[in-house]
């Protein structure tokens, strides 16, 4: 049981922006967890379950994302999203 997670940093692959299809995949994955999940990038914060907030991060390829979460499945959520981001292509 993890109520809140450490903030975990992960870099987008150099050639993949968090736009369009990758952003949709990210939000769909985030929505499968009960935890509240936040992403920080480029000095902005976004609710990981909001596609419009994620798109507004303007996170291009190579951008570092900081992902944190709170809730019962917070640790699993962050681990899953970090792995998703690292594996985007």
């Amino acid at each position: 049981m993890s109520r809140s997670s450490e903030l975990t940093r992960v870099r987008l692959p150099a050639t993949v922006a968090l736009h369009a299809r990758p952003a949709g995949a990210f939000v769909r994955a985030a929505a499968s967890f009960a935890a509240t999940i936040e992403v920080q990038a480029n000095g902005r914060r976004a609710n990981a379950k909001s596609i419009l907030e994620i798109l507004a991060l303007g996170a291009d390829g190579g951008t570092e994302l900081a992902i944190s979460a709170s809730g019962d499945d917070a640790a699993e959520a962050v681990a899953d999203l970090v792995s998703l981001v690292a594996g985007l292509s």
Partner: protein
Amino acid sequence: MAFDIVECPTMTSSNGDGFVGLVLVSHSAAIASGLAELVAQVAGPDVPIMTAGGGPGGTLGTDGGRVLAALRTVDGPGAVVLADLGSSLLSVRAALAELDPTEAERIVLVDAPLVEGAIAAGVAASTGASLADVAGAAEEARGVPKL
């Protein structure tokens, strides 16, 4: 009021009563079909999308018959309707009045910006969200800053 039923393009086929669908109504067929393409890219191929863009004969405008056909034929357990401006909304309201109660209960017209609302609704639908939650996601788009 009588409408002609016309064939509507659909961007996706769906798995029947899987995901909630979208109906996109615009004065321009190009806006409606381009937006459907964009939503499909972000939300994935499983969200049913119907478009009703442009007036009769390919003009800019709205075509009540095309709107009604889209509302009647969109796949999924329900569908959210997004429209661009003024008379598009009037066309949707007129078409909704033509539906029988069982058809009407699966359709929700939302007050949302067309592009942002469609993207938010499409992604929500792709998570398996309910009709009410998909409509809510579209309407939340009104309050999300772009800058």
